[in-house]
């Protein structure tokens, strides 16, 4: 069954409080080489029965309308033929 993996991240320039906290926590634990942390969402959809092009269109629409908030977030996705 095809699986779509959607990655939703905050747009550039938008404050990412989660990323800030993780970055600080890593610093205090001595990970000095981590320079920037961004946190996003990761959504897996199991899909059936469409042509690859249709699937792509569908996942794009779902990602835009439902999975992300276009005002502050952007998304990417890929679709894999998986078990």
């Amino acid at each position, binding site marked *: 069954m095809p699986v779509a993996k959607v990655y939703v991240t905050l*747009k550039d*320039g*938008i*404050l990412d*409080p989660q990323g*800030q906290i993780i970055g600080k926590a890593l610093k205090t634990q001595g990970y000095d080489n981590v320079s920037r942390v961004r946190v996003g969402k990761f959504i897996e959809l199991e899909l059936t029965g469409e042509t690859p092009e249709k699937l792509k269109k569908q996942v794009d629409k779902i990602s835009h309308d439902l999975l992300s908030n276009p*005002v*502050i977030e952007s998304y990417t996705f890929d679709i894999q033929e998986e078990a």
Partner: protein
Amino acid sequence: MAALYEELGLTTEEYTKIKKILGRVPTDVELSMYSVMWSEHCSYKSSRPVLKGFPTKGPRILQGPGENAGIIDIGDGMAIAMKIESHNHPSAIEPYQGAATGVGGILRDIFTMGARPIALLDPLYFGELKNDRVKHIFEGVVEGIAGYGNCTGVPTIAGSVNFEECYEGNPLVNVMAVGLMRQDKITKGIASGEGNVVIVFGNKTGRDGIGGVSVLASQEFTAKSAAKRPSVQVGDPFTEKLCIEASLELIDNKLVVGLQDFGGAGLTCATCETASRADMGMEIDVRLVEQREPNMEAFEIMVSESQERMLAICTPENQERVLAVCRRWGLDAGVIGHVTGDGLLRVKDNGVVVGEMPAHSLADEAILYNRPAKKPAYLAEVQSFDTKALKHPKDTGKTLMKLVTSPNLCSRHWVYEQYDHMVQTNTAVLPGSDAGVLRLKDSKKAIALTVDGNGRYCYLDPYVGAQIAVAEAARNVVASGAVPLAVTDCLNFGNPEKPENFWQFKEAVRGMGVACSAFGTPVTGGNVSFYNEWQKGAIYPTPVVGMLGLIDDVNKRMTAGFKKEGHVIALIGETLPELGGSEYLKVMHKIVAGRCPALDLDKERHMHEVVLEAIKLGLIVSAHDLSEGGLGMALAESCMLSGLGARVNPDSAERSHLEVNEWLFSESQSRMLVSLPEKSMFLFDRIIHNSRVQHTYIGRVGGDDLVIDDILNIPIGEMTSAWRGTLECLIG
């Protein structure tokens, strides 16, 4: 092509004035600073002349309008700080973050003054819950308030939720914050003392909310980079919580001479206002401000609205201690400049002066506008609607159930259970009654807080409608056993450049002022939100009143639910056939018209006095004000809040001249539903007879049903589950 100043929203008249003030052409940085400070939002250029009519003084008012929040003396050396703010437009674009950052902004106004925030209240207005967009906004706003308020540990103890088509494209998200302080800790946003140090602490500065002045950027950058500027800010309640603790620690240890939050217009506003209040100047270097993003322009740093930032002014001797406190709390902090004696706000960019303006000119010298006002034509038509001609539905029980399950009247627990309303362990009356009540630790006292405002009434008559907002707020406070002390207000209106809207605004302010004087509750500050419009036009004029009341003995606090079988139920006040603008008219007849209920301020005040007297003497055991949904709804609520039924006699003198729907659903003002043990009736009658208020015994508490003989009979259990289930069901 329009001139740059025009694109920045300045008029030619304003631009000329700027040139005159400076004696030269302004730099881009200066122009951007004037444009944000002289905007409606910051300068109140349309509203200020009108707001002058408010009563603002009183023996308990320690700080009236003009500072970050109003301050009210509650005795024992203690004081309450309070303020209300709107975040309507950001919430329309991004409900969660818009509402969340609204909470953040108003909390900062409170702790900036040295008060620990102890309560939040959230009057909310949405379109009708008929489409996904409105549901999304409603859910997002509630979650945003919860997300921010809960995290900062400030209980949201009261609010209101209203649904009306006019708010569909322009929801109203107002938030009121309340703080408690010792009077000797009052701190102001003031930059006094030449040579004193200016410090920024909190979050770093990014390109948030540069919106309006982004035209400046497009001159220098490509359109693409301008489009990247976020117009929506993301709230960071964790950092806010740290700002609260750091600020209060700074104040407790007397380390600062002034403290100011960053609100609209960001660093520009914080610097020029603090300098202007002290009659001083200030010199800062934007490169010393901690930046979240690379390559920020000077003007961007000056107008950025990044959240969770504070400005502190301290003596050079205290500088290191101030920085140490901030850093101990994990906050970014750094010196960005110092106070000067020349009255000029001097902005440098890496040592090079990029702007130099009199601080006063930015903060206080915007051109004020006396906007034209004109009575709207629709008023005559809607007011002429005659409710006498209505054909009333037969089944009154069904009608009451319809009202009980109307989105405007049903239980709000779906909302307030998402809010932490018990943190700080002071909440003595939980949400669900008339006003939220907080006990004050180490004292017998308590305070009562409420927010009220009925846009429908104000649409039908802005003058009376605004008075009713004040009266209802006072009534809610009184029903909780508190003496009304003071008001903060949020005035939500349409575009003030349209004379009809401005007329509504003026009328509402006039009405509020008169009512506040009548109740002895001065206005201690507030907020004006204009331009609330969408494709169907302006919202209903919606002035919202936040009120503070004081209870001398927390054990005398009162709640709306009945208490015990056998107690008698009394209706205080007089019911008139007033269905204009009522929830009944809207729900059962789909009509918004008529005259809003009349209000006699003296009568209202006398009613308050009687009820407070009865509470003080321990005569009554429940009190519930009558408002939307009238007597029928008040009876239902007093039953549902207690799980006790009631039996009501419809033939009491009270309703002799009224049709039954008029009797049950009229929204006549100045009424209260109370219950009392039989043994208290004698004294209760006495105090009422000595007043100019009337009362009627209409029934008794008891049984499992609400029974109005020969009219309706509804099991309380059934009614309660319908009432509690409505919102959840509508959201789906």
